[in-house]
């Protein structure tokens, strides 16, 4: 019983303990807010990348692409673990708005909108054809014209609140897109002629994936048209196949199965004329496929965590000092306890219990304050923006919507446990010193 009464009494009576609680609360508050926002940004970014790529991508970096993709698509569609398959064409291109003289560099992506929406989250990124993706390449003003879907940042300006000024229907604009068709050998097709493979497409929709590099550089065109523009030769080729697995299949498991299937497919096609194009094809999970974008954010999150870990050492020291002080003032209490038979281990347990209380109280206060702050963080930012024009991130530069404020239970538990562990670590040395005190010395008359 004394192991509860004494720590509680110290907690209430020794006001210096409040500072330890305050330090823990402050640290927990900051860590919760920063890690929640950071984790939210990283999670959101990952989700967007997952939505963009699907679960798995079979593809090559070579602009020549790879042949026999239709056969492999059939294999995949026959597999019970696959939900959607979408072959795509990717190629750099030059784009020019019809009324303009200037060309810009873009990447064109040839897709079948229905298939691509089944394999990825493509359909959800559209604005005008979200409900009927099959008509995504049909401009509302003339469905007979060949349409193109522009990455949103190519067409619209992002506003200060990360919103876009959409019109009721897409503007009637034509874009001429020019590509370099390559033969299966990697040579430029039609070399020597004056006219490049250029085709005019009409703005039919825009795609807002939330990924700045995608939204600012990709133009989607119908698969067949892209194939004509980029892949010369009689044998049809594609750049990649995006795949979505059945809900009960994890991406890792699905990718493993696709890789096995691909190896079998390659063996079967070993004697084919364009089999050499299959050599550079890789099977990657969405994370591997988008690694170059995701890895830096994950690393930044890790570095932030390490930096906060370093700063949080201060909290351990505060707890150490406070406990050292309390123990040095309570040597008589310890002497009396030990004189009535309390063991060294019990003394350590007593002060560890006290540290545990400090940790629980401090982290509870910090977590509660952090939670409230996070719930209101977007309203606070709105208020700051209205009054002072201040935003945490300039939304015209950073493609961030609301500040992520969803507290992840794992983050919450990890912070709570770390804070309590930090308190226990800080109290360890003073507790050990307390346990080593000898009642015969501390209770001497000249010490009283």
């Amino acid at each position: 019983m004394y192991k509860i009464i004494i720590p509680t009494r110290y907690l209430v009576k020794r006001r210096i303990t409040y500072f330890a609680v305050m330090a823990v609360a402050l640290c927990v508050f900051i860590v919760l807010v920063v890690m929640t926002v950071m984790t939210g940004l990283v999670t959101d970014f990952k989700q967007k990348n997952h939505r963009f790529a699907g679960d798995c991508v079979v593809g090559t970096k070579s602009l020549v692409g790879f042949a026999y993709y239709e056969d492999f698509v059939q294999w995949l569609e026959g597999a019970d673990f696959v939900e959607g398959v979408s072959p795509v064409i990717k190629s750099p291109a030059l784009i020019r708005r019809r009324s303009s003289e200037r060309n810009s560099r873009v990447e064109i992506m040839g897709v079948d909108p229905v298939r691509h929406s089944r394999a990825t989250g493509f359909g959800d990124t559209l604005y005008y054809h979200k409900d009927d993706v099959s008509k995504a390449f049909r401009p509302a003003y003339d469905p007979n014209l060949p349409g193109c879907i522009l990455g949103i940042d190519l067409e619209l300006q992002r506003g200060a609140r990360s919103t876009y000024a959409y019109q009721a229907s897409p503007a009637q604009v034509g874009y001429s897109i020019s590509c370099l068709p390559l033969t299966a050998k990697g040579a430029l097709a039609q070399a020597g002629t004056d006219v490049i493979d250029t085709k005019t497409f009409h703005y039919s929709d825009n795609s807002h994936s939330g990924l700045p590099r995608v939204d600012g550089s990709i133009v989607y065109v119908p698969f067949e048209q892209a194939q004509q523009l980029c892949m010369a030769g009689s044998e049809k080729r594609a750049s990649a196949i995006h795949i979505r697995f059945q809900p009960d299949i994890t991406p890792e498991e699905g990718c493993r199965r696709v890789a096995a299937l691909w190896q079998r497919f390659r063996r079967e096609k070993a004697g084919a004329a364009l089999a050499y194009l299959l050599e550079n094809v890789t099977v990657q999970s969405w994370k591997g496929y988008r690694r170059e974008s995701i890895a830096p954010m994950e690393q930044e999150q890790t570095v932030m965590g390490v930096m906060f870990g370093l700063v949080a050492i201060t909290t351990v020291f505060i707890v150490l000092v406070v406990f050292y002080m309390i123990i040095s003032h309570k040597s008589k209490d310890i002497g009396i306890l030990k004189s009535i038979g309390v063991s060294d281990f019990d003394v350590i347990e007593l002060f560890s219990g006290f540290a545990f209380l400090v940790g629980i109280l401090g982290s509870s206060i910090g977590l509660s304050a952090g939670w409230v702050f996070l719930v209101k963080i977007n309203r606070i930012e709105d208020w700051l923006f209205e009054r002072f024009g201040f935003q945490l991130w300039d939304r015209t530069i950073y493609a961030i919507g609301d500040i992520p404020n969803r507290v992840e239970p794992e983050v919450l538990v990890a912070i709570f446990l770390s804070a309590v562990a930090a308190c226990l670590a800080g109290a360890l040395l003073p507790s050990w010193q307390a346990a080593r005190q000898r009642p015969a010395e501390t209770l001497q008359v000249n010490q009283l």
Partner: protein
Amino acid sequence: MLKLFLWLRYLRKKKIVFLSIAAVAVSVSLLVVVASLFTGFINAFERAAVEAIGDVVLYPPMRFAEYPLLIERLEQTETVEAATAMTLVPGLLHLGAGTGNVRPVEIWGIEPGRRAKVTGFKRFLLEQKDAPGEPTFDTPGAGEKTAGFVGIGVLGEPDEKTDEYDPAIAEEMIGTQVVLTTGTASQTEQGDAARPQFNRRVVPFTIADILHTGVHQFDEGCVYLPIEKLNRTLYPDDESPTAGQILIKLAGETETDVALAVIGGIWRSFVQDQLESDPYLLQYTKIDTAKELQRPYVAAYRKQMGILLLIFGVVSIGVILLIFCIFYMIVRLKQKDIAIIKSCGATSRSVAFVFVGFGACVGAAGSGVGAVLGYVITKNVNTIEDWIRVIFGLKLWRSSVYFFTKIPNEMDWLWTGRIVFLAIIAAAIGTLIPAIVAALTKPVETLRYE
């Protein structure tokens, strides 16, 4: 003297004071490193723009003729040291038959000699950086063939682990012929039935040199050709030389506002004299400094820096609490010392000052150590990053993400001064309550026999 004696004694006897010095040092070094790295990055960002495009850029809404005359007029003024023209068009570079290796690039039509005077162009060339004279596209034995420069990243990817390019591999490409495809638009018919026509222009050229600027955007996607050759290819019907932009280097001490006004005036008179007062050119031409063009990004980076410093600053409040706790403990344990001092005639104020002064000294020592630590970390940040890569396999800095091949490692002395000053104040604040407690000590009560 007494104060100094007590400070030294407490420092010697109470080893825990070193803990507060260490805490201050860690916080200060962290803040110094954050501020320095951010400031270094921002400075490098601004510098990269100046090195790429000069001090001032004049960019009209469309290309214009007779640019040599404009350059001549600009260089006659005292505000302009040098000026050069450039044309910028996108293109696709085919690096070799059979490879399928086609890269989207920006084609910069430039005058290499003039450009070297306006920007830091020459020192980025692998072959010609140490050669005497102006850089040139002329290569021995090339004859009439077109030659060009390419960014080092156009020819290959950096090493996956180190994120560094191998100049030797790139240099092997010098003398190789590559093919650039670009084009211009034209109208096939007039009126409503007008259809745009893309006229393909193919420019085979020999790689004469390679640029390694250390800025990812330029290294990875730029190809440089002679401006006359590029313009002749793109616009064969033009009668006089045309340019898309004029890059300007200002003379030594010229004030930016004055320079912009002078350049604006010369441009207007040039358009009136030579370009038939084209209203489109007069109205929509922009004249900006390179720094002004980067301003929105720089403002965003500065804001991020401020927010990060604020977050770490708030966390550093813990250090004040730590100092408070340590000093409170000292005061409680040394009440008899304080009472004796007071009984010898010391005033409450001087007793309080013993502790506040000691706190400030702790802050000064801690922040001094922190500043040195921050300096060492900042200056060696690239080595540290490399060690992290070797030990943990974690490549923290990639030029494709953070623009530059190396982490800018300049010390920000202004922010260091501010942080050190605030740390000393914070340490003194941390000792304030313990000092008041010490000052309120009553010697009669403390020194009572019972």
